[in-house]
């Protein structure tokens, strides 16, 4: 067998197992972060004894994910009588698969030199790296829509349509931001993007506006608060997974966390220099020690981003649906397009890279001024005339 094939297989096996276990503990971490934000203690009782084993210590609640998983497996797996059985079964899988395929291009540790051979520590080091990740990311919304339709429930259906509109809208600024980074570096290869940042300055300093937009879009595409309109309890019960129970519901939850990891990894490699550690000068090709160090740096960056996501979730209140769509179509898409145009002009004129940061600042100031100018100057909250609403002037 080929050396690269072996390296890819090892990377896939390790990454999938680490991620699946990581997802379980991310859910525990989320509950802990929620508790800290709300001045509670959070889950701290379930250890590894489960009432049977002779472990006395509660292990700081680290047994909670195992207990949760067991509970979900033992719950009744109910399919509503009116559902489309085949699609109902297929939908959670259709959500899960794209989120796992998206990791294929993440360059965990650059290149490994092993006995005269050089292999890439990536599942698939394909030339179009980042574009592939975006393409796969656009498939995630199918499972949501199909699951919502197959449930044959009005709440699910409305939740699914909301989720589809939201995810499709936020894909556009994501794509334009990634495109701008590709334009600056002249390559879409994930490992090359990281390598070019490692030798220079991280993109987050050159393109701060794009970084903010991209991070917000990742939040929106994961359907996470403040963008979790699709499962808004007050209006839609449980959203698109209202009718799902047991392990099928757990797959939806799991895929949300996997989507978060994939989005954070993409953000880290596009804007935070991937496996680059600021002071240390890492070579692109290194031995096992270098690969381990670089993978660790990458994973720490992803973990920090995940923590920020949780922090945001438990801090900010939820948007209203029209505010959400307005943010995407009137806010982010024009801003990203302006940054794209400015950056392409700078790249075309071969100006030094720091001018991109200036262009970003100009665009940000312009956007803020446009916002200030376009908003009505009334003390009360600006109400959209939503036909049919109780508060609406339009009847």
């Amino acid at each position, binding site marked *: 067998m080929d050396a690269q*094939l072996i390296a890819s297989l090892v990377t896939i096996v390790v990454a999938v197992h680490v991620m699946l276990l990581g997802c379980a503990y991310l859910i525990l971490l989320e509950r802990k972060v929620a508790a800290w934000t709300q001045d509670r203690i959070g889950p701290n009782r379930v250890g590894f004894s489960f009432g049977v084993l002779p472990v006395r210590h509660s292990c700081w609640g680290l047994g909670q994910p195992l207990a949760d998983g067991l509970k979900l497996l033992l719950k009744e797996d109910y399919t509503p009588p009116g559902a489309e059985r085949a699609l109902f079964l297929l939908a959670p899988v259709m959500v899960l698969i794209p989120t796992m395929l998206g990791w294929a291009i993440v360059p965990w540790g650059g290149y490994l030199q092993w006995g005269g051979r050089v292999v*890439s520590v990536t599942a698939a080091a*394909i030339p179009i790296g980042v*574009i592939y990740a*975006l*393409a796969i990311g*656009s498939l995630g919304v199918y499972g949501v829509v199909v699951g919502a*339709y197959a449930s044959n429930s009005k709440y699910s259906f409305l939740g699914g349509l909301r989720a589809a509109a939201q995810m499709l809208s936020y894909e556009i600024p994501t794509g334009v931001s990634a495109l701008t980074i590709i334009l600056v570096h002249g390559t879409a290869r994930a490992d090359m993007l990281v390598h070019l940042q490692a030798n220079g300055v991280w993109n987050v300093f050159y393109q701060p506006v794009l970084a903010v937009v991209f991070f917000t879009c990742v939040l929106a595409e994961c359907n996470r608060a403040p963008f979790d309109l699709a499962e808004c309890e007050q209006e839609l019960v449980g959203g698109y997974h209202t009718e799902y129970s047991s392990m099928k519901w757990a797959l939806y939850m799991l895929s949300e966390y996997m989507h978060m990891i994939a989005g954070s990894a993409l953000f880290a490699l596009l804007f935070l220099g991937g496996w680059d550690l600021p002071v240390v000068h890492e070579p692109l090709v290194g031995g096992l020690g270098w690969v381990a160090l670089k993978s660790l740096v990458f994973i720490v960056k992803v973990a920090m981003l995940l923590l920020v996501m949780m922090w945001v979730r438990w801090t900010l209140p939820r948007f209203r649906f029209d505010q959400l769509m307005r943010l995407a179509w009137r806010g982010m898409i024009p801003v990203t397009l302006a940054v794209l145009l400015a950056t392409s002009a700078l790249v075309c004129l071969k100006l030094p890279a720091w001018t991109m940061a200036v262009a970003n600042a100009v665009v940000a100031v312009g956007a803020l001024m446009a916002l200030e100018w376009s908003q009505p100057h009334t003390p009360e909250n600006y109400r959209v005339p939503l036909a049919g609403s109780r508060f609406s002037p339009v009847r």
Partner: protein
Amino acid sequence: MPTLSQQASDAGLEQVAPLLFYAFALLTGLSAWAVVISQNIVRMSVYLLMTLAGAAGLYFMLGAEFLAAIQLIVYVGGTLILIVFGIMLTNKSPFAQLRTEPWEMMLGVFIAVVTAALLIFALSQTPMKAQGEAILNSGYDQVRAVGVGLLTKYLMPFEAVAVLLLVVMVGAAFMARQRARK
């Protein structure tokens, strides 16, 4: 670093390639058949999704990664719009059954036979293996080649398509607005 990347992306796919090809070809063919015989619009869209995704997989195997990614973004993304619009904008309920008239079936068979004949003729005229190997071995950058091509040699068709899309979008927005006013 072209040498390094070539060395690293030189994955040993030879052993599994035929299996993957048959898997993707089977997925594409069977789900295309299912699109035709299905009567429920949402199921049709799901089968169409599988067809297009299978074709994207075949593109990946042929080394045309950029085309595959664009297939996923444009067509597969477009199918989703089709599902949503099929449900929302048709007057029928999403569980309605679609019936095909006999003359529609005749027309469909006629178009299918003509298209297949045209494609088979075109394929038999193209020295695919020689050309493909020459392109793959030249180690060129797909994204760059497509971009340069669109902005130099094929600029006119590119612009014409862009204008057409713009017109369609404006028209759709106009029609939707008229409908909302009523």
